[in-house]
């Protein structure tokens, strides 16, 4: 018998369907958030929603500004903790340790990168919060600063292991050439290895920043979750709110059913989604750069 039509490739059909399902979930998620948030964009306007300083849902006033400030401040503080320590530690493991020791340290660090965020949150609640409260003599230990430091410790293993990968990716010939020119080990690292790894290191930092902006649980537990703090310097040592701590709160349950309030919550989610997409795409661009 001569088969005229190509036989249906079951494997291909199954694999293709599964792959499409994954893509559909991703696109569906994005579409869902933006569609659901339409009421708030209509009511407040795009600029009004993003720069509005007030969030009073009982008075139907929805503004993101203080949450954007909170998220930005917390993530920046986290980077101030994680980047110097993480990059420094990565330079040490990548350039000064023997390959075997490096692997052991790296394995431990990667293990630690998996510590659940709720455990960090618990340590933040029971230890860090008190240290900040007593050490800085504040009215409360639930502050943006507490959240930032906790997040910094949390993303430290990620930043460290990614920076280490970035340094390892620099070909050995650069090191050999620099050493051959009579540069010391330190000069080799500073003038040959680091410049070569620059965009990959920046990508690592950006990905760490992305993790810090998206982290919910640990921040939620120590941030104080107070709306409408005016974004100034003193707000850093006061309770505040981030995009994620807003979404993680019970306000989500209250909002469901009220189309404007729900729209506002979905607006928060949309902005968070957009930030994380920008960070991921930016990180990949940087990594691709030669």
């Amino acid at each position, binding site marked *: 018998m001569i088969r005229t039509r190509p036989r249906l490739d079951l494997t291909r059909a199954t694999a293709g369907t599964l792959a499409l399902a994954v893509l559909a979930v991703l696109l569906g998620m994005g579409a869902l958030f933006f569609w659901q948030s339409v009421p708030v964009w209509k009511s407040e306007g795009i600029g009004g929603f993003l720069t509005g300083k007030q969030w009073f849902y009982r008075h139907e006033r929805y503004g993101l500004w203080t949450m954007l400030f909170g998220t930005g401040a917390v993530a920046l503080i986290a980077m101030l903790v994680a980047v110097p*320590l993480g990059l420094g530690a990565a330079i*040490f493991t990548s350039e000064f340790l023997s390959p075997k020791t490096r692997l052991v340290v790296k394995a431990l660090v990667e293990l630690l990168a998996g*510590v659940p965020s709720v455990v960090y949150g618990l340590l933040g609640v029971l230890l860090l919060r008190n240290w900040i409260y007593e050490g800085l003599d504040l009215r409360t230990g639930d502050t943006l600063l507490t959240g930032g430091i906790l997040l910094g410790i949390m993303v430290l293993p990620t930043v460290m292991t990614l920076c280490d990968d970035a340094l390892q990716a620099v070909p050995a010939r650069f090191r050999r050439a620099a050493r051959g020119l*009579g540069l010391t080990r330190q000069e080799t690292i500073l003038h040959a290895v680091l410049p070569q790894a620059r965009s990959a290191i920046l990508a690592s930092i950006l990905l760490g920043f992305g993790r810090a902006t*998206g982290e919910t649980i640990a921040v939620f537990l120590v941030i104080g979750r107070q709306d409408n703090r005016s974004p100034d310097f003193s707000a850093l040592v006061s309770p505040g709110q981030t995009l994620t701590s807003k979404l993680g709160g019970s306000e989500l349950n209250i909002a469901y059913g009220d189309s404007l309030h729900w729209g506002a919550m979905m607006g928060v989610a949309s902005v968070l989604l957009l930030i994380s*997409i920008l960070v991921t795409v930016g990180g990949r661009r940087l990594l691709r750069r030669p």
Partner: protein
Amino acid sequence: MITPRKRATSQWLFWITGACALMAVLMLAGILFSVAIRGLGTIDWAFLTEPMKRGGLEGGIVHHLGGTLILVTTALLIALPLAAGFGITQELYCRRESLKEAMGTAIYLLNGLPSILFGIVGYLVLVKWAGWGKSWLAGGIVLAVMMLPTITVAFVERLRQVPRAQIQAARGLGLSRSQLCWSILLPQASSGLITGSLLGVARAAGETAPILFTAAIFSGATWPDGLRESPVLSLPYHVFVLAQDALDPEAQDRLWGTAAVLLGLVMFLSALALPLRLRIRRHETS
């Protein structure tokens, strides 16, 4: 020539970065240590096998442990075929380089999304629209989407290491693409699926945000019996709730105990994945 002066000044980078590494390692070790010393004392056989009493003041965590296992098992069963299908499509069937690239980017995007967003989608679509209420299956589905990129990335990494020569030989023998998939690619790259699963499960087991609105409650649930309105207790959610009012010293012991069990579970799973990961790395570098 390295002059003595040059040698002296060339030390500072070593010491500074060494101090950074030491500080980082000490800080992280301190985290494990502080959970361990507070929590390990509470853990005994009864703690692991008894149900919770008086809102966490007495009794054990058997339902929390069970609930977490139910959630991650469900998630793994859903995520595994999706990840395998995605990886095979991307590496075997997708012929256009740009499309391959786009699929890779999609997985990275999914990986970078904050976990709370998955929780909210699950809440809206499954809990509210589908009318399931809080349910173990809703939580399992949400966690599946979350662990999907982890499994896919590990699988694709492994697929790319299957020797070209073997694939060409198989093609030369006249194997079709689907035969290639079942007899060469899947057996060779299955270790990627295993590593990815271990890491994905480890990550999902510790996640709180995705199950906050979809699956977990604090008390009143035992084992799920059905689909709708059948929430579970879970380890991370238990820690999360108790951490919010952790002032009761009586509850603190059990709180740390629960945290230690959770941490131990996650560390154990990640540690299992470690040798496989390192083997992949060595393969890459050689």
